[in-house]
Structure formats: C-alpha cells, structure tokens
C-alpha cells in the first residue's frame, strides 16, 4: 500500500500510466457523447411542459455535475498536498482549475439559455444559481492565486488552503434546491430512487454524464502530463523522453 502510494506520487509513473489510459478515455468519451447527443436530441420524447427546450438538460446536467466533481477532486488533492507534500497533487490542481472553471461556465451558460424559454428570464438570484456563480469565482481565485505567487511551494500551499476553505460551497450547491424553495427545480437524479422522468428521457442523460466524465478524465490527464513535462524538464527521464520523441 505504501509502495503503491509513493509510486503514484512519482510524476514519471503518472506520466506513463496516464499516457496509456488516454486513448481509451478519449475514445469512450467521443463514443458516449455522440450516442448520448443523438439519443437526447432526436429520440428522446419532448417534455409535455417545456417542449424541446428540455433537451438542453443533456448538456446542462453533466457540466454541472463535473463543475462540482472537479472541485471535490481538487479538494482531495489539496488535502494530500498539504499533509504528504505530494508534488503530483499540486500539478493536478494546476491542471484541473481552468477545466473546472470551463465546466462551471458551461453549466451557468446553458442554465441561463434554458431559463429564458422556461422561466422567462436569463438570470435570477436563486440560491443554486448564486452558489454556482460563487463556484466560478472560486475557480478564478484559485487560478489567480497560482499566478500571483512566484515560489512554487508557497503557491501550492496557498492554493490548497483556498480550495479547502471554498469546499463549504459544494454542499450549499447540492442542498440549495431543498433548503430554499426557489426557481431551480429539484435534482433530476437520486442514487437510491428511480427517477421521476420516463426512462427514454433519463437514459440518454446517464450516457451523457458518463461520456462527460470520461472526457474530463482524458483532458485532465493531458493537462497534468503537460504540467509534468514543464515542471520536470531538468530531470533525466524527461530529457531522455524529449530526445526519443525529437529523434523520431
């Protein structure tokens, strides 16, 4: 267990393993998202209240899931980074923050565009919407802090602390629709119950969510590999790798 933990912390080991997983993740993402999109756009029946605008759900829900999952993953990485000083975790955080910000933006954007025909307005200061906006600013804060501090070690520590403080926002997002009864509808999915929607509607959503998770993992691996290449450029293994690639 301990050996495994230390190997995982080794950037070279991660670089190799991530490189081997990448094609699988990328192709599954492409396949799942393609199937989910066609299924959701063409075959799923229109909603009896919202008509066809409900099809936005098939990208709104996965991006909103990922916006929060990405933050939780960064929080786990931040704990490991603070307790065990694992450098790989700092690199994962650097790689994940812009991606998380992108997914949060997409969730907010698709939500606003969906809100226009459904609620009659692009934006309201609803509890969930506000909490998601705070999440976006948290991501911006993390990115800004990384660039503001030159010293890599100090930058990683400050970022990890900021991430852990901001993690309080995640349960607020999750329970906001239950605590405050406002415009945003309650969750479409619960792990332990059958969904309220008919299966023709939520199965494509499940496929889309899986596809988006694969996509996130693939891009996160690519970005972390780039961070490793940059940060470890003076090490022997990166030099050898660069020579091998450039001699091809």
């Amino acid at each position: 267990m301990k050996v495994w933990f230390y190997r995982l912390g080794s950037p070279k080991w991660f670089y190799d393993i991530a490189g081997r997983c990448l094609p699988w993740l990328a192709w599954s993402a492409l396949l799942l998202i393609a199937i989910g999109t066609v299924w959701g756009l063409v075959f799923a029946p229109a909603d009896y209240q919202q008509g066809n605008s409900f099809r936005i759900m098939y990208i709104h829900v996965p991006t909103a899931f990922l916006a929060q999952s990405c933050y939780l993953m960064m929080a786990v990485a931040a704990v490991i980074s603070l307790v065990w000083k694992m450098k790989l975790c700092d690199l994962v955080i650097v790689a994940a923050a812009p991606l998380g910000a992108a997914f949060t933006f997409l969730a907010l954007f698709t939500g606003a565009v969906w809100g226009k025909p459904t609620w009659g307005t692009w934006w309201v200061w609803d509890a969930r919407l506000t909490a998601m906006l705070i999440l976006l600013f948290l991501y911006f804060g993390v990115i800004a802090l990384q660039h503001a501090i030159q010293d890599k070690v100090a930058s990683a520590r400050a970022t990890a602390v900021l991430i852990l403080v901001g993690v309080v926002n995640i349960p607020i997002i999750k329970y906001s629709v239950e605590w405050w009864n406002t415009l945003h509808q309650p969750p479409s999915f619960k792990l332990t119950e059958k969904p309220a929607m008919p299966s023709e509607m939520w199965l494509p959503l499940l496929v889309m969510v899986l596809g988006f998770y694969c996509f996130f993992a693939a891009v996160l691996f690519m970005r972390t590999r780039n961070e490793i290449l940059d940060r470890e450029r003076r090490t022997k293994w990166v030099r050898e790798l660069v020579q091998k690639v450039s001699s091809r």
Partner: protein
Amino acid sequence: MSFNSVVEFIAYMLGQVIESMRAPMSFNSVAEFIAMGGHGLYVWLCYGVTLLALVLSFVLPRMRQRQLLREQAQRLRREEAGL
C-alpha cells in the same frame, strides 16, 4: 420506489435500455428538428457553445504538448552545442 439490491438495479437498467431502443424519432422532418418546436435558438446555442468549448479544451493541451516537446528538444540541442 427504491432498489433493494445491485442485481435488481442492473436488471431494471437493462430492461429500460431494451425498452427505449424501440422508441421512434421525435421529429418528422429535418426542418422540424432544426426548429425544435420554436426553441431551436436556445437548444442550438447551448449545443454549439458546449461543442466549441469541448473541442477547444481537447485541442489546446495537445498543441501545448507539441510546443513543450519542441522547446525542450531545442534547449537540449543548444546545451549540447554549448558543451
């Protein structure tokens, strides 16, 4: 209704997949599909922006990797020439 076991859950899921494969298309023509019952602008705007964001977030790291490898190869050659 809740599930009592994992097996029950998987059996339910498989049943749903098979059932929904028999679903007909929701649109009768391409024009109807594009119009999305009057909500075309909203639906296509969302799908368009998301597609753009996904493509960019996949392509940019790939370009960055090429650039990093090229720069570091150049640096290595310079170091060798300097020695």
